[in-house]
């Protein structure tokens, strides 16, 4: 029973750590499926987190924070879109630039406004996305096994978490069951064919980039207005890159993306839990080994040793119309 309780705790924190990954990973999925490679997820996440916390601080409203975070993130996305789609730039260079500018700019402005080394003031509880208790969570919790699962894993999350989980089937449906999704996937594989059919490659890619901005902005807002109650410089701490790894690991598909992000979140929770623990026979747990597992797994997968991760064919390739 004790191990079960511990499992519930670790899995619960795994979900919370996985949510920003899910949102950012789906964001990357939309962008890369349309042929725009996005290694700037990290920077957009930071932008969303900073704008979200700043707006929530000034307005006292979590929802206005969310709006600001998403708009800021879309703005950054559009810069990447302009460089990648209209300027036919190297998309890796553009993403790198966005990561650098966002990393510096958020800390700089935060420091200029509040003079706390870039940290924003602590948000009051009223300006946060608070946990929602689903009906009967309290009373149902007494039921063995299913009760704690319902009470601690399914109930008690904030609205962004539920939205993130709902986004997975939504993304799947939009990409695989709608005309827009079909075209979007096609533009990531063979833009010339889409162009020949009289559909705007540019329009499709720009819409994908905007969707990407919305989702990754949400992941940033989640970090600063739901998980923590403030923004702190570099607070995304590589989550944008883990999401990128998860995207590769999931081979650019929505459901596997959910599973991978939960796995990576769970590994993160496990490594935090195991900090300083001594296992019999092994000695102190090398926490770094668990923390690096997502990166190592991704490299192994990319190397083609466990299946093959093939990116969308036209991803990273600017489309040149006139010939």
């Amino acid at each position, binding site marked *: 029973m004790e191990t079960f309780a511990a499992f519930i705790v670790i899995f619960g924190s795994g979900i919370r750590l996985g949510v920003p990954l899910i949102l950012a990973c789906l964001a990357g999925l939309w962008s890369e499926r349309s042929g725009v490679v996005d*290694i700037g997820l990290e920077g957009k996440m930071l932008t969303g987190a900073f704008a979200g916390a700043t707006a929530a601080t000034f307005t006292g409203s979590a929802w206005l924070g969310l709006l600001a975070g998403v708009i800021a993130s879309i703005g950054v996305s559009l*810069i990447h879109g302009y*460089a990648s789609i209209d*300027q*036919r*730039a*190297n998309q*890796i*260079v*553009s993403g*790198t*630039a*966005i*990561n*650098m*500018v*966002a*990393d*510096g*700019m958020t*800390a*700089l*402005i935060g*420091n*200029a406004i509040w*003079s706390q*080394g*870039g940290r924003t003031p602590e948000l009051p509880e009223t300006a946060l996305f608070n946990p929602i208790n689903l009906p009967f969570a309290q009373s149902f919790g007494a039921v063995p096994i299913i009760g704690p699962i319902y009470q601690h894993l399914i109930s008690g999350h904030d609205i962004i978490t539920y939205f993130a989980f709902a986004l997975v089937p939504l993304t799947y449906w939009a990409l695989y069951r709608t005309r827009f999704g079909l075209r979007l996937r096609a533009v990531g594989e063979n833009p010339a064919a889409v162009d020949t059919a009289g559909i705007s490659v540019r329009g499709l890619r720009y819409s994908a980039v905007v969707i990407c901005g919305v989702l990754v902005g949400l992941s940033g807002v989640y970090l600063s207005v739901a998980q923590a109650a403030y923004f702190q*410089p570099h607070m995304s701490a*590589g989550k944008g*890159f883990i999401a*990128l*790894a998860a995207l*590769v690991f999931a081979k650019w598909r929505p459901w596997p993306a959910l599973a991978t992000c939960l796995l990576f979140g769970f590994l993160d929770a496990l490594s935090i839990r195991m900090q300083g623990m001594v296992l019999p026979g092994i000695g*102190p747990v*090398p926490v*770094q*080994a668990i*923390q*690096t597992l997502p*990166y*190592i797994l*991704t*490299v192994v997968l*990319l*190397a*083609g040793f466990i299946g093959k991760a093939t*990116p969308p064919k036209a991803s990273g390739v600017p489309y040149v*119309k*006139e010939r």
Partner: protein
Amino acid sequence: MSAPLKPLPAWADVALIPLINVVAAFLISGLVVTAIGENPFEAVRILIVGAIGDLEGVGFTLYYATSFIFTGLAVAICFHAGLFNIGVEGQAYVAGLGAALACLYLGFLPGYSLLVVAILAAALFGAAFAAIPGYLQAKRDSHIVITTIMFNYIASALMGYLLVDVLRVRGQMNAETAQFPPGGIAPQFHELLAPLGVHWPVTPFNVSFLLALAAAFGVWLLIWRTRLGYEIRTVGANPTAAIYGGISPARITIVTTLLSGALAGGMAVNVILGEEHRLILEFTAGFGFVGIAVALMGRAHPVGIVLAAILFGMLYQGGAELAFDKPKISRDMIVVIQGLVVLFAGALEHMFRRPVATLLARRTTSPPI
């Protein structure tokens, strides 16, 4: 969509366009400074005085520049082969391990032979850490951008583990190794110049700078004056044509990433052997990423890289002074400038090409009288 562009005159291509791009980056940086309520002109004045106003500033500027020359060259050599190595940060970090292990375990070597061995060890470790992504790109078609990003995190975890749990001196709080023996230390210029009667203030500026200049010359020689360099450029320009010409892109990819990792190791030489004299956590401090900005701004040419590295050295040294004088303009401003340089000199490098071409065309095609 629009008429194809006429080729620009060479001077515009080599000097004018890059200059406009960098000026745009700095103009926007000026606007950012204005937006947070400071005077950009005063900021520039403090920055320049801090960077080159006295010999101490110059020493620090050149010390930073040394690191940037190495990381810039490491990124640039990969550019020539059409590869984007984001992993210079991790490669330099692991190279520090090589230098430290040599200094800690080969202390019996006489005189400065230890320094030479430590430098070689740094290059070897850097190259070895770059070899895996290079091999995976060449042989297994794994995208080097993704693998090098992953390897940065792997390097960080590996070095964290080694420094905290293995290499740390017993009973010490800080996660760092023991001090290196004197033979493993790259001499600083104030020590070297003192016997000659030249007074140079105490700065971390050390002989690695000369090594960096030699490396820059070596890269120039390699890329434009050797068969290997020709092969690297061919693979970068057109891998299919390279195969037709009898060049193996896989071999070139691996060789180039090895060279890149070894160059990244130069940064560890500068910081670990030249200044810290012990291995410390996170000594790379993001300088591997500065290399991307330096390589783009220097147009992947060693001369451009040395100049861009000195400019970034000024930004880092002057930026520290600026943050001290004007707390509102924290050192994050330098990261913003760096990002804007990558954006304008890299991602948006062709944005001003069309307006400039139109302008130049209008001037040259004015009707004859």
